[in-house]
């Protein structure tokens, strides 16, 4: 597919703090709704930054799009100056946005996708879950504790099968998402496993554990990675991660969604 990336100022139509420090921002950007797929991301610059510091745009996964309204959503956590600035923007203000960028999740027609998200990792997975509505697919969501579980409602609205776990057992199963995944995969016949692909996003240790499980069970796995990025668009070669073959892959163009076996874990 040819890239149809756009670089423009987009109007904010909502910026809601859904949990302390966690926001959902909605922008009006019809171009992105028509050309993006789940797992892709955008480079964002808050419009309320007055000077040249912070200098770089920040990468955020596309959380959801609404083609009818031309809306694009981001789910983000305030961790530093860029996200803090973003969190202070109001409806009607603007952000600079470049996107959609990168390789999204690649879901085969006949596959059974299992989505595994931990913490903020649910961000790109909701978009994916929406694309899978009506298909046979399972979503596993995890968090440390109930109050940190994000976006359960919107996931439920997709009608997909949803499994939830919290590390402290305050909601859903007690334990890690990988334990839920392990039990799930253990119950499957080898034939069924051949049709399954895992799509995972979350903290690196979780992704590694997910990939390890997938290797053990012999199922395909795609993961969405994060690195520091300068351009997000293949210009700077700054976003390198080690590949299986000893070379480097670039998260912004070869990823952020990778077939897990391509990577050096």
């Amino acid at each position, binding site marked *: 597919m*040819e*890239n*149809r*990336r756009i*670089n423009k100022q987009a109007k904010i139509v909502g910026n809601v703090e859904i949990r302390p420090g966690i926001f959902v921002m909605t922008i009006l950007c019809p171009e992105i709704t028509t050309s993006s797929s789940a797992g892709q991301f955008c480079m964002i*610059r808050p419009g309320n930054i007055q*000077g*040249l*510091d*912070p*200098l*770089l*745009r920040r990468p955020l996964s596309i959380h959801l799009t609404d083609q009818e309204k031309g809306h694009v959503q981001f789910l983000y956590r305030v961790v530093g100056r860029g996200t803090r600035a973003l969190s202070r923007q109001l409806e009607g203000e603007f952000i*600079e946005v*470049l996107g959609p960028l990168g390789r999204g999740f690649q879901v085969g027609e006949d596959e059974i996708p299992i989505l595994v998200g931990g913490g903020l990792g649910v961000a790109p997975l909701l978009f994916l879950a929406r694309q899978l509505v009506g298909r046979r697919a399972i979503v596993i969501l995890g968090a440390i504790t109930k109050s940190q579980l994000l976006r359960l409602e919107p996931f439920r609205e997709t009608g997909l099968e949803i499994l939830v776990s919290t590390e402290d057992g305050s909601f859903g199963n007690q334990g890690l998402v990988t334990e839920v995944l392990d039990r799930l995969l253990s119950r499957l016949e080898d034939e069924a496993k051949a049709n399954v692909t895992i799509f995972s996003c979350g903290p690196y240790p979780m992704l590694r554990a997910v990939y390890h499980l997938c290797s053990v069970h012999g199922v395909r796995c795609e993961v969405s990675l994060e*690195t*520091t*990025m*300068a*351009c997000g*668009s*293949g*210009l*700077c*070669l*700054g*976003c*390198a*991660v*080690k590949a299986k073959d*000893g*070379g*480097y892959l670039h998260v912004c163009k070869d990823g952020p969604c990778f077939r897990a076996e391509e990577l050096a874990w």
Partner: protein
Amino acid sequence: MTSHTEKEKKEPDLKVKLGPLILKNPVLLASGTCGYGKELKDLIDLKRLGAIVVKGISLEPRKGNPPPRIHETPCGLLNAIGLENVGLEAFKNEKLPWLREHKLRTIVNILGNSVAEYQKMAEGLSGLEGVDAIEVNISCPNVKEGGVAFGTDPRAANEVTRAVKGACDLPVIVKLSPNVTDICEIARAVEDGGADCVSLINTILGMAIDIEKRRPVLGNVFGGLSGPAIRPVAVRMVWQVARTVKIPVIGIGGISNFQDALEFLMAGASAIQVGTATLVDPGASEKILTGIVDFMVRNNYSSIGELKIRD
């Protein structure tokens, strides 16, 4: 009256002459920040620009440095890409054809570990359709001579220039490192070596420390500082070099908007390159070009050369 004055404000002549290389305007994309051009094709109208300087290539492909490779600093960017590139052959076969097809003015940034490597690169590029000039990056360490960078030793810089110049019939731009006591000395050395033009500055050597992890942030420990933070240093060096050599100077370093670009053109640069700004906003170069034209019209400048401060 007003309409008369308006009529007099005709479109300025943006053409620039960089020795034998004539470009339609002074706005270039800097090496390492615009890939091989194609990466930007859907985002800007590359044809509008004076030229693009492609990512530095070496004789053999290079994998580059271990991550992390980039780190944001106040108004700046530290990078330690480690000159990851496809190598000369792949450049010729896979990258150049697209640039040629799209008739983009292309300057090829080259780097080597020895004078001989630079020479081979120049030979390999000589006579290739689509290559308009060579930009010699002399900021990388001279492994042969024991780690001294070509860019910090006037004799080595002169030698590399001579070798490249002798090995090809292309216009040769030598790109200077700012990590020196006296950049004018190096500029003179490459002018003597036959360079058609100098471009400056490359990045300033810097580093950052991750205080939580208690270790350098970059995989390579050191990195090159670019972006608005370094602009005052770059403007100073362009000013000094433009008053030292007779060959044209291309100004580089922290140019984010048209005002920045004009600082360099007034300081004595004949053209400018946009680097880090393209990473921040792929459209930066086009906005800069538009801004320069508007400024020239507004202030009745009829050519780029007129902007230079003569003292």
